[in-house]
């Protein structure tokens, strides 16, 4: 299917700011879906609230735009009710890991077959530039005029600890890797987490004087490195990207099917 067929073109131009990374994530995501040749009726995309969450409006799938932080809980209901559907849940960093942190760790713990995409721009964009639990320390935000003192979460470590069976990280600079990783995440049977660094030049960029969108994307290029690379050994400050976890473990909906068999047989 042509890439454009997955888009609801009548809603373009999109609402994201010039230079925002979220459109690049949309691009990578749709290319991954196109490669796998999914029909539009097989995909349910569920989102919460925030800049990232408006992605559901632009794609011609079954789309569920929900409430702040709860997208994974809604998606869990859809997936359990119709396990044959493919659930993709794009979330912002605040949506996924501040207000939605509890649902995030529990979806990972269950290992339910949902693909969670964390579009991490380290800021609340929709509400005008407040810091998030992924901002990390020494970041300037409208709610951190004296710089943040809050340590940030490491999405990869958090997801691993919570039980996600597919965990990966990439950036908007590495668009081919992004497409490849999303494809593998969707194909993975179990809870998949893909963290994507996505620049917010409007709020994070301006507030922290890190330049424009191009500078921010170049930063991703210069400050990340493939997992276990030689560069990482030489410079431990580099952030690793790639697939950190990819393992087979019992998936929740399959487990439930077995439970039903047990209950029906009166065991």
């Amino acid at each position, binding site marked *: 299917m042509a890439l454009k067929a997955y888009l609801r073109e009548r809603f373009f131009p999109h609402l994201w700011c010039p230079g925002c990374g979220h459109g690049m994530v949309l691009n990578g995501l749709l290319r991954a879906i196109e490669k796998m040749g999914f029909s539009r009726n097989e995909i349910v995309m569920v989102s919460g609230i925030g800049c990232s969450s408006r992605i559901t409006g632009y794609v011609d799938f079954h789309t569920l735009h929900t409430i702040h932080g709860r997208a994974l809980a809604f998606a*869990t209901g859809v997936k359990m009710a119709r396990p044959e559907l493919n659930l993709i849940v794009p979330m912002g960093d605040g949506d996924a890991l501040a207000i939605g942190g509890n649902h995030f760790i529990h979806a990972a713990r269950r290992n339910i077959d949902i693909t969670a995409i964390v579009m991490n721009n380290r800021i609340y964009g929709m509400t005008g530039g407040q810091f998030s639990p992924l901002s990390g320390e020494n970041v300037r935000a409208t709610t951190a005029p004296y710089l943040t003192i809050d340590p940030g979460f490491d999405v990869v470590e958090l997801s691993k600890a919570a039980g996600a069976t597919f965990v990966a990280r990439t950036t908007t600079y590495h668009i081919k890797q992004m497409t490849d990783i999303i494809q593998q995440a969707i194909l993975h049977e179990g809870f998949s987490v893909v963290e994507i660094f996505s620049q917010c030049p409007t709020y994070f960029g301006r507030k922290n004087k890190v330049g424009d969108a191009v500078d921010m994307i170049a930063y991703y290029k210069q400050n990340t490195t493939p997992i276990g690379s030689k560069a990482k050994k030489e410079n431990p400050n580099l952030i690793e990207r790639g697939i950190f976890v990819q393992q087979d473990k019992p998936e929740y909906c399959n487990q*439930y099917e077995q439970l039903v068999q047990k209950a029906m047989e009166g065991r």
Partner: protein
Amino acid sequence: MSENIKFVQGNEACAEAAVYAGLSFYAGYPITPSSEITEYLASRLPQIGAKFMQMEDEISSLCAIIGASLTGCKVMTATSGPGFSLMQEALGYAIMAEIPCVIVNVQRGGPSTGLPTHGSQGDVNQARWGTHGDHAIIALTASNHQDIFALTVEAFNLAEIYRTPVILLLDEVVAHMRERLVIPQPGEVPLVERLKTSVKEGVDYHPYLPREDGRLPMSDFGGVHRFNVTGLFHDMWGFPSSEPRAVHGLLRHLVDKIDNRVNQLARYKEYYIEDAKHLLVSYGSSARSARHIVEKRRSRGERLGLLELQTLWPFPHEIVREKCAAAQSVIVVEQNMGQVLQSVKLAVDEPDKVFLANRIDGVFIMPSDILNILRLIQGKGV
């Protein structure tokens, strides 16, 4: 056919009724005094191939059933006050996105953690106005197990007809009490199934365009029609819109589809109302004590009557006004500080003749409590 008679808790009656109504997806979180509903369904639903989930909290419980409802399932969750408080945002979402679901609130004493194992009817107004913004809601209640069964099935039916969440307000007393329940034969009680769209694949489907009768045929997620569901104000395709006409039209639709059908939605029972000098108005477990006192006094020739409300929202004001018209005094019997009392006072022509007989100390309201108020009204002293 032999009757299927059980001796069960009210919570079990509710759970059994949900299964009868076609419940195929339940998600819940443990909380007293509603946990037996969740426990019962954890055992029962897998046996019939239906889905059961214990979620991480009450918020996700309601969110999960909303998601499942969109795939065509009949869905329910059950909770109590603190959990019901947590559900308010998702409740508003279900109202806005017009998603059929049933939410059981087995009321306990509040506010906050309150009295977990004691009865109360303190959530009547929360059921009406707990979620933010203008909206309408359907809330039902029942005083005995047979009625819990009937009203639970009714809750599922109304959720489907009006594409809306329906709240079932039980209370700790009826929920934990055990009594006889006759389970109707399959087919004996009419069930309303999901109204599916007849629009064919490839033809423009409008998930939010009501038919002439006000109903909105649905298309399941995973089916041939792809559409958007959002908590934002939206157009007839479900896409966000802040166009004033669309906003006004949608809000009016959400409110009118329920509030314009107050009389159709009114469920109530009446006992000796016709010549009642003193009319008791009650609901839920309180109505049991109210009925007791009415029957007892009637046997002595005293003209007492009872109007037992089963639909609390939309409040059946016309019916209450009419039933209370001839009575010399009206006594609202409830276990809160007068939540239904306020609605009754607004409904009747002479608000001054409406009195409250209540208890708010966690102790079940007894016939003697009502009698004391009655004696005061009659000028007999306590």
